[in-house]
């Protein structure tokens, strides 16, 4: 059941038949996904499902060899460096560990994209960065170094940096990871507020069920590199797929053991 927001919106991210490999192992296997304008898409899966790898491809940290990724209608594998740069200005990314620059204080971290991509004067940049820090409830903390911040504050500072250029799409990698439930819940609220206030499209990668159900407009469930299903929160909750049910019920799937593979693992490939 799609919300009116999704039905009216155009796709801003389109992934078609994406295949990625690490050596001979397939990490993402024929992944297809569409994210519409203004929605919060949660990509969910367990450890090793390929969700973080998918995020790294979506933000252009790896180049696409097989399949197509279109961001804002542009095939990212065919972009020239100048076009990529323009596209990157419309993307904000909040990494799992924050990835704040440890040698700079919070204010300088948030100002960094402005300093590199605009010709604004220092005072204007400071005002913009304070505005963004205000949005994430971190005003007054701009002089602190990242090492002086708590886990939740690091995530919020990273979010302020991600939105400082007023992006069209914001990506979050595991926003709740490593946070206590109360702080994680506050961060979820913040994501919803930012989507509504800034009218951005949000893509969240997480393994936290509670957080995913709270913020998602739609969810994509990944398992061992494959998309099991894409749908609204209700559709995911009502899914009869056993692997989706396992994920929702936090139940591990029992895999049959291949005797040859088992022997090869034990002997380290010698036998």
């Amino acid at each position, binding site marked *: 059941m799609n919300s009116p927001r999704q039905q009216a919106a155009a796709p801003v991210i389109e992934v078609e038949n994406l295949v990625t490999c690490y050596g001979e192992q397939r990490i993402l296997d024929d992944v297809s996904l569409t994210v519409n304008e203004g929605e919060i898409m949660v990509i969910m899966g367990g450890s090793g499902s390929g969700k973080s790898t998918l995020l790294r491809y979506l933000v*252009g*940290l790896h180049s696409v060899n097989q399949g197509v990724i279109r961001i804002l209608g542009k095939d990212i594998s065919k972009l020239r460096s100048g076009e990529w740069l323009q596209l990157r*200005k419309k993307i904000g990314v909040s*990494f*799992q560990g924050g*990835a704040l620059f*440890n040698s700079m204080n919070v204010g300088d971290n948030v100002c*960094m994209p402005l300093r*590199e*991509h605009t010709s604004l004067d220092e005072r204007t940049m400071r005002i913009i960065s304070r505005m963004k820090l205000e949005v994430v409830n971190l005003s007054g903390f701009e002089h602190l170094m990242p090492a002086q911040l708590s886990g939740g504050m690091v995530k919020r500072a990273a979010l302020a940096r991600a939105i400082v250029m007023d992006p069209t799409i914001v990506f979050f990698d595991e926003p709740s990871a490593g946070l206590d439930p109360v702080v994680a819940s506050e961060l979820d609220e913040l994501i919803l507020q930012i989507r509504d206030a800034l009218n951005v499209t949000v893509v969240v990668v997480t393994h936290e069920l509670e957080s995913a159900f709270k913020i998602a407009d739609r969810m994509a469930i990944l398992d061992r590199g494959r998309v099991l299903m894409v749908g609204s929160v209700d559709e995911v909750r009502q899914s009869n797929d056993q692997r989706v049910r396992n994920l929702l019920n936090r139940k591990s799937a029992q895999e049959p053991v291949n005797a040859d593979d088992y022997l090869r693992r034990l002997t380290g490939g010698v036998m």
Partner: protein
Amino acid sequence: MSHCLNGLAVATELYHNTVRRSIETLGRRFAAGIEDIGHCAALLAESAFWILLGRWFKQRVRSSAVIQEMMNIGVNAVPVLTILALANGAMMAMQGIYTLREFGGESQVISGIALSVTREFGVLIAGIVVAARSGSAIAARIGTMQMAQEIDALRVMGISPVRYLVAPILVAMLIMMPLLTVLSNTMAILGGGAFSVMELHISLGTYIERVLTVLAPSDLMQGLGKSLVFGVLIALLASSNGFSANGGAEGLGRATTRSVVLCIGAIVVADMIFTFFLVVR
């Protein structure tokens, strides 16, 4: 009997597998070495691009970052370089005077110090000091950033990590290495002078006058030319090791050690090649 044959077959297979894996490991290391050289060449080309054309693309290499690197690489290295160069110059004078005394030619030590310091040892001491200090610091800093996803953060912001991190280091090296070499030459010659004045019973003025008489501009240029190459080698090897750091704290330590060893090894080998072509040929 069949048990023995089976055992022999298993042992033979194990032996073949071990040999095959050893050859594979050797091949992989060789390929990794070639890849490292390619990575350094790519870093050099991209850094040169941003230094020369960055302003044109409105992505210039920031002068504040260059000045910061010049402080780290050059100014902060002055005390230790001064001490090492002074001590090295004095040691050369001691060895030279006592060795040449056997032939009654101890006064020739001044020519020996002047030429070997300006052509060889001044730049080598500066190179080793910078490789040891900055080779480790650069690799550790970039490696930490790599592991904390700060490099990824730069890339998704549309900021080239090479422009932001490597290009300022390269420019700072190209400026500071010749200056440090001049300092190293001066201190080593003064260190040698201090001992020579006492042993040869000459004045410092006479010593300096004889040094200046012996030296030709080409001797100084030889050392300064090498210093530029050493600077480029240290910048590229240290940055490359930082970018390839992985595996947590242990991996970072490994990358830092590897960086210092490779930097010192590279400058010594490069120095030998230079000396061969500039002196022997």
